[in-house]
């Protein structure tokens, strides 16, 4: 996998954990940010970015190339990753 994959998550969100577990199980490398553990300024910056990308503040958000996937959705992840 050569694409840059990013996961925005909350440290307490069970669906975020499932998404990360799914990616790990498929040996997909990704950067991940736990938005709720950031300091306020960084948090605002990331939340603005998430709202710009998705129109809301819902987690997890997975960015795979041009694809933006909101929520834990294994079918969409498989399609975007080609697995």
């Amino acid at each position: 996998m050569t694409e840059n994959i990013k996961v925005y998550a909350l440290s307490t969100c069970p669906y975020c954990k499932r998404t990360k577990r799914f990616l790990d199980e498929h040996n997909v490398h990704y950067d991940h940010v736990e938005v709720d553990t950031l300091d306020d300024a960084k948090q605002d910056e990331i939340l603005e970015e998430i709202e710009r990308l998705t129109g809301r503040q819902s987690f997890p958000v997975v960015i795979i190339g041009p694809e933006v996937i909101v929520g834990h959705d294994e079918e969409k992840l498989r399609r975007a990753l080609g697995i």
Partner: protein
Amino acid sequence: MTDTSLERVYCPVCQARFRFAPGWKEGDSVICPICGQRLALRKTPDGWTGDRAKAFSEDEIRERSDEFARIRGYVFNDMKEEILEGLIGKQKRFGDFYCPCRMMHVPEFQCPCKPTRGGDVDRNGKCYCGFYWTKA
């Protein structure tokens, strides 16, 4: 003689007041009919209030969510334990049992959150986090 039918008990979890039932007395253990929290009744100069039983413990949130589901006739699914783990994480990191699927740590998102207490589950079949569900 005080007319107890007009008295209310303040619940510190959902921040609402519910009716004081005849026969209740100081120290009694009661369940808040709005959020399911177990409370010990205490008389204050401003009226009745409830003290959270087993406050901030895992037992507290387990009993509260079970009681809330029982009162409303909701059910859980196989996400129950993972969501409870998230709620316990919120309490440890942010001080109370706020919805684990939301960013905001404010009283209205204390589980069960205000939209859930207000009927979101009946409207949508589930709460925002997918913790409480209507029966299939």
